[in-house]
């Protein structure tokens, strides 16, 4: 049970995401195969493996850790999700204190800044059936429950992300590759929203929620 989101936890977060993504790579690929091109699992697997390799093991700044993670994702992924998740981590990192760790409230604000970065870059709004549909409610839930402490806030965020992801199923995609399908995109879980739920679940896991 952590009270502060410090560099060690940030590193652990990235490591756990990498493990979960690798475990779920086939599943994420299948989700993407249904309404995209099937590479989302492979893309994130490659990306987070690179991020683990680029973890700044010396710094005590969570901000530096996650900045490196964002950069690694951008440099290693290539697909739409690379720049988007890369931006998410880089923007949220930049919103963290320059040195040391962050409080729950600070992390909550940072997650919000991360999502704003994703929205600005990709142009997707809520309801467009993208990762935004999981990241937005997650950030909101985290901020709302931040006063209950890091673990509780992370659990709330993870749950919100999961619900947000599940809610993409009936939607018609308006962004990304799935939008080519028009109404045929309905009835499928968005792969990016699914991986976002996984990213937030990993956070809850590492802060001991």
């Amino acid at each position, binding site marked *: 049970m952590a009270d502060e989101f410090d560099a060690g936890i940030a590193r652990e977060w990235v490591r756990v995401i990498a493990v979960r993504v690798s475990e779920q790579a086939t599943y994420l*690929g299948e989700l993407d*195969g249904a309404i*995209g*091109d*099937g*590479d989302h699992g*492979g*893309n994130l697997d*490659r990306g987070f493996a690179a991020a683990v390799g680029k973890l700044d093991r010396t710094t005590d700044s969570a901000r530096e850790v996650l900045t490196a993670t964002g950069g690694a994702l*951008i*440099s*290693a*992924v*290539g*697909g*739409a*999700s*690379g*720049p*988007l998740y890369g931006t998410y981590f880089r923007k949220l990192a930049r919103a963290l204190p320059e040195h040391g760790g962050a409080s729950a409230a600070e992390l909550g604000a940072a997650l919000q800044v991360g999502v704003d970065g994703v929205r600005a*870059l*990709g142009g997707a709004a809520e309801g467009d059936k993208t990762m935004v549909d999981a990241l937005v409610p997650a950030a909101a839930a985290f901020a709302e429950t931040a006063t209950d402490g890091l673990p509780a806030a992370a659990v709330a965020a993870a749950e919100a992300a999961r619900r947000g992801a599940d809610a993409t199923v009936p939607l018609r995609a*308006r*962004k*990304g*590759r799935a*939008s*080519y*399908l*028009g109404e*045929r995109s309905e009835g499928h879980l968005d792969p990016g929203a699914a991986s976002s739920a996984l990213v937030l679940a990993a956070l809850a896991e590492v802060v001991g929620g």
Partner: protein
Amino acid sequence: MKKLIDGPDAVVADALRGMAAAHPGLRVDVERRIVTRTDAPRQGKVGLVSGGGSGHEPLHIGLVGLGMLDAACPGEVFTSPVPDQIQAATAAVDGGQGVLHVVKNYTGDVLNFQMAAELAGDDGVDVATVLVNDDVAVEDSTHTAGRRGTGATLFVEKIAGALAEDGAALKEVTAAGKEVVERSRSFGVALTPCTVPAAGRPGFELGDDEIELGVGIHGEPGRERGPMRGAAEIVDVAMSAINDDMPLQGDLLVMVNGMGGTPLSELYVVFADVERWLSGRARITRSLVGNYVTSLDMTGCSITVCLLTPQLTQLWDEPVNTPGLRWGC
């Protein structure tokens, strides 16, 4: 899956090694995945950079050379290249007159090239972008990611490449590229799906008597799945879709492009049908028939049409010397 490869994850690097061995006229950086002309950067010449997922060869790596691209950045199979790679290619071909990025309209390509352009801008390179979105099979609305970039990419690379070779400024080269995009449309058809090496099985399924009309170059589904029919009927669907979107008249550049697994003889059959379809409406004055913008081993074809102007015709005719396209030298 049976493929002539030495491991699914090594395909892109191994193919680049093969290119390096086969084309001493190209500089192939296998490590960083950049193919450049050996004479790059050419001082005073606008540089042309393109790239995208691998699996569409000869696009883009086979279209580097005199009169066309200065550099190409291949990504993983069907996955766009990354910003660092594009930035490095951009720097490598900047001859002081700026660099044009030719980008196919897919979210991944758009975002990665956009980030690369920002990085290159930070390096002081003047970067312009032409976004190719020629695929009429996709509804073009604010409710989608917009039309996909397919066959017209080759037209843009050839024509903008010729203008850059002639010493035109970045603004003109960009304008010519955009003009080609505005005047070009494509429509693709898949008879059988393709298999990404890392996936090991076909990306979608088609029945023995089924085809996908309006397919993308990654096997993305299109307008409809329908029963198999004769080439002339398939051509009618494709040409009607193109003509409805952009009425065809005057002089045309037409490419009948194989998806990778279709014999050349069938592409010529399709071309004959396209010519018949157009008779009385417009005139094909320039053409290409062959495998240019492929989707691995997919069978099927795409048809791309560009409404020519005298200037575009002249630029099309200028010399080009690349592994995939060569004439005049």
